[in-house]
């Protein structure tokens, strides 16, 4: 009995030793592979990569290269000053460094695709820093030198025309940083209603696995998405985000001076309070206080009376030159009696994973309603794509009842998942089997959220394959990639429609089809008196669809008294003379002109212009007009001293030093309970990378610098592993000895 028990006991001891030894081996193997692994492991909870951000956040560098901790955000305020269609937006954000270390923060945020970003200011503790424009690489050098010298510095860079990052160096322990960015924008006029969009969320982008190479003339063959690591999408669906994820509370106020008595003033997705101030002025604020930054803010307004605003002219004189903004709506009666023309329409629907949820429902509803608009004599086809592609019919077919029913069944059965390989679908949609068919117009309606990173390859495909087709992107979801869509619409000579909510589907698709089915205004031109004109942007003026205004900016060498717009709609000629003496003076017109110029020059890339010339022109324009662009950044290094040398700074001095025009009330003195002060997980504080404190002037760290040798021996590890191994072997031996022979 005893021996049996002992035998069992020693057997299990031996087994234990064996298991222990095996475990040691496995653990050592695991650690070995981990140390060797080149592929980045998924970041642990609380840490993120820059590429994974789908909303604005201040990121603090950690000691793990490439991983960041999102800093708790206290408040964001967006102040919109709207005069006519011209918008000056001031975005003020207040952050706090929650750690005991000097840190560097990187702040990722969206801005409107066509906005001109021309000002960066920052308050760090009691310091004010004003941004200067520099060539991008030089700006980065200046920033890095300041960072190494322990100076507080900030750098505003453009990642995409609608996506920016601000880096903030040397944020002291417990310090508060306020970043303020200003941009110039213009409200869109469509169907008599002005619309202003303020993006708050960043659409996660899909990077194609084997993205085809796009070769720009004169460039080395860059990968389709050379900066994929900066803009790649999150792996997590928003619905799956942890409940304690930090959200960005945003407050928005707008001062509206439309230049006419406004009728309805509405925000599409947020509850707002509208306060009428008389003389047509109004003040708009969020009804329920700050909102999370998970969907774009859209404000619309229209005149009270049915007289539609037909023309709005603004001028600005800067450095002896006159800049002009004209927004002119052709009369609604024009071309309305023209007969409907038969069409060949190719519908493309994105059913990739990023569309899952309400976006897919909206897209399906939109497509089904579009199919209902097809009439006998039309031809159509439906293409769906994720990382695969499928056409309902091999080629466009007649819009018969059977064909339409088959397409409807196909659309209803669609599910959203997979990647977003848009290029093959775009190319297939642009294939025109009957290029000489003048009886039908050819249109491609493209429903997507635009969650892609290889925009360049797509623009090239659109430019090369367009032919007589016209491209009408329909943006789906709360935060579509409007930069891609509106640019694709321009390249495809169509219009961009946005659907943000299921309730908008019917209205938006009606408006789109009204545009599709009516004749288009072509050959638009603006004429100025001899010798007055210098440059008009965009050039040439794009075709106009129904309800769209002419929107142009011009630089005039000498003040002119009048201008003429002319265009052609079918057989009808349209002409309108405008008196420039009626133009109202406004600020920011030159900025808008410069931004249009940069945009137009950038688009020449897809028409074969040389890269060097594009770069030179863009750089010069951006530097002249203080604009952030692909090639220029704003950098701020302590130009405003924290305090005069002969004065002792006390805490009370700080409010006096707030520069004129800073509206800190909105962010600094908000009622405390509104301030969302999420604490930083204490476990993460150890991971913060210490920045260079002002005392320790390290050399520029981001330059490559000297490669340091490996300075760790496996000594302790060897001793530990060896001891464990030897001990387990010993224990096993002892167990064997005790085991009696049978």
């Amino acid at each position, binding site marked *: 009995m005893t021996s049996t028990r002992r035998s069992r006991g020693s057997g299990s001891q*031996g087994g234990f*030793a064996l298991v222990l*030894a095996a475990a040691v081996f496995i653990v050592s193997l695991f*650690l*070995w592979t*981990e*140390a060797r692994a080149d592929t980045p492991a998924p970041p642990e909870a609380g840490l993120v990569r820059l590429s994974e951000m789908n909303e604005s956040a201040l990121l603090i560098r950690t*000691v793990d*290269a490439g991983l960041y901790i999102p800093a708790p955000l206290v408040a964001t305020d967006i102040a919109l000053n709207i005069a006519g269609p011209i918008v000056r937006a001031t975005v003020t954000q207040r952050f706090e460094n929650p750690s005991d270390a000097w840190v560097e923060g990187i702040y990722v945020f969206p801005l409107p695709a066509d906005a001109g970003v021309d000002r960066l200011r920052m308050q760090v503790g009691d310091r004010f820093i004003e941004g200067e424009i520099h060539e991008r690489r030089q700006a980065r050098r200046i920033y890095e030198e300041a960072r*190494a010298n322990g100076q507080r510095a900030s750098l505003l860079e453009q990642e995409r025309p609608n996506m920016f990052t601000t880096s903030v160096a040397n944020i002291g322990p417990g310090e508060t940083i306020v970043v303020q960015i200003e941009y110039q924008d213009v409200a869109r006029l469509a169907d008599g209603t002005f619309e202003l969009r303020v993006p708050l969320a960043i659409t996660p982008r899909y990077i194609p696995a084997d993205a085809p190479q796009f070769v720009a003339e004169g460039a080395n063959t860059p990968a389709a998405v050379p900066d994929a690591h900066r803009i790649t999408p999150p792996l997590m669906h928003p619905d799956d985000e942890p409940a304690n994820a930090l959200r960005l509370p945003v407050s928005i106020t707008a001062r509206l001076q439309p230049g006419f008595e406004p009728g309805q003033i509405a925000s599409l997705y947020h509850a707002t309070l509208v306060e009428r101030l008389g003389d047509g002025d109004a003040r708009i604020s969020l009804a329920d206080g700050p909102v999370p930054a998970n969907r774009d803010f859209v404000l619309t307004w229209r005149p009270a009376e049915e007289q539609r605003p037909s023309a709005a002219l603004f001028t600005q004189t800067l450095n002896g030159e006159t800049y002009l903004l004209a927004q002119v709506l052709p009369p609604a009666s024009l071309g309305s009696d023209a007969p409907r023309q038969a069409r060949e329409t190719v519908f493309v629907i994105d059913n990739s994973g990023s569309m899952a949820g309400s976006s897919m429902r909206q897209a399906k509803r939109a497509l089904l309603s579009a199919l209902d608009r097809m009439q006998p004599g039309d031809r159509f086809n439906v293409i769906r794509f994720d990382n695969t592609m499928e056409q309902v019919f091999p080629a466009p077919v007649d819009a018969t009842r059977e064909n339409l029913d088959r397409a409807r069944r196909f659309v209803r059965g669609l599910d959203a998942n997979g990647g977003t390989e848009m290029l093959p679908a775009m190319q297939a949609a642009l294939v025109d089997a009957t290029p000489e068919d003048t009886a039908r117009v050819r249109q491609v309606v493209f429903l997507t959220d635009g969650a892609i990173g290889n925009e360049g390859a797509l623009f090239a495909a659109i430019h090369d394959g367009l032919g007589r087709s016209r491209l009408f992107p329909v943006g789906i979801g709360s935060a579509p990639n409007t930069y891609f869509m509106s640019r694709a619409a321009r390249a495809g000579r169509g219009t961009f429609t946005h659907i943000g909510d299921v309730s908008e589907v019917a209205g938006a698709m009606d408006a789109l089809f009204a545009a599709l089915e009516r004749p288009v205004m072509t050959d638009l031109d603006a004429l100025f008196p001899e010798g007055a004109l210098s440059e008009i942007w965009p050039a040439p003026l794009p075709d106009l669809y129904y309800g769209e205004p002419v929107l142009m900016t011009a630089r005039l060498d000498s003040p002119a008294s009048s201008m003429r717009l002319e265009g052609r709609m079918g057989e009808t000629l349209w002409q309108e003379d405008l008196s420039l003496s009626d133009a109202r003076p406004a600020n920011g017109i030159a900025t808008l002109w410069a931004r249009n110029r940069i945009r137009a020059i950038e688009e020449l890339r897809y028409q074969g212009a040389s890269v060097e010339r594009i770069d030179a022109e863009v750089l010069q324009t951006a530097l002249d007009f203080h604009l952030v662009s692909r090639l220029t950044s704003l950098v701020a290094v302590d130009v405003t001293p924290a305090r005069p040398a002969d004065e002792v700074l006390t805490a009370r001095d700080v409010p006096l030093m707030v520069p004129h025009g800073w509206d800190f009330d909105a962010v600094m003195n908000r009622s405390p309970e509104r301030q969302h002060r999420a604490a930083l997980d204490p476990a993460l504080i150890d991971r913060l*990378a*210490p*920045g*260079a*404190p002002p*005392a*320790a*002037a*390290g*050399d*520029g*760290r*981001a*330059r*490559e*610098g*000297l*490669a*340091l*040798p*490996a*300075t*760790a*021996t*496996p*000594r*302790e*590890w*060897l*001793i*530990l*592993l*060896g*001891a*464990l*191994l*030897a*001990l*387990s*072997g*010993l224990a*096993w*031996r002892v167990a*064997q000895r005790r*085991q009696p022979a049978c």
Partner: protein
Amino acid sequence: MLSLPALAKAASLAFIATGTALVGQGVWIGAKAEIAQVLLSRAWARAIDGETAPTPWPWADTWPVARLSVPALGEHAIVLAEAGGEALAFGPSLLTASAVPGEAGISVIAAHRDTHFRFLQHVEPGQTVIIERTDAPPLAFRVTGSEIVEAARSGIETGNGGPARLALVTCWPFDAVTPGPLRYVVWAEPVGTTT
């Protein structure tokens, strides 16, 4: 054919043997670092006497160039020329690409975090680091701060001149078991000079 108990016996013996060998190897790394410093101090004495590049043992591929000490911590070590890859096993090494301590530019001295530079984690700003050279009077440096950098992108620019500065480098974090890409840098500047 081996019976199961015999197999188990052989395996357990193999475990003991391998384990002992590993322990021995680990101890040897530590011992080598200690013994080398003893031999090095003898070579250092010869260097002070004027011998050029005295090797501490006949087959050594390195020689002492300086003596580093941190009086506040009671730590000292002979600094080697980084002539061969093995130097780090025996002592802190002055990287060849960097400046001679006290001369214009940055001097980078690296050592293992678990042997000679284990004390680096206790070095604090304000403490003094003494560097003795064979050809000049001892130099005092004051620690100004520390930072953590990536090994491949240290940002430490050598060969550009500038004020004399000292960078003491070791692996980071100190308690890690496996080698990593991060380095801990302690910065110091000459006492009495203003930058």
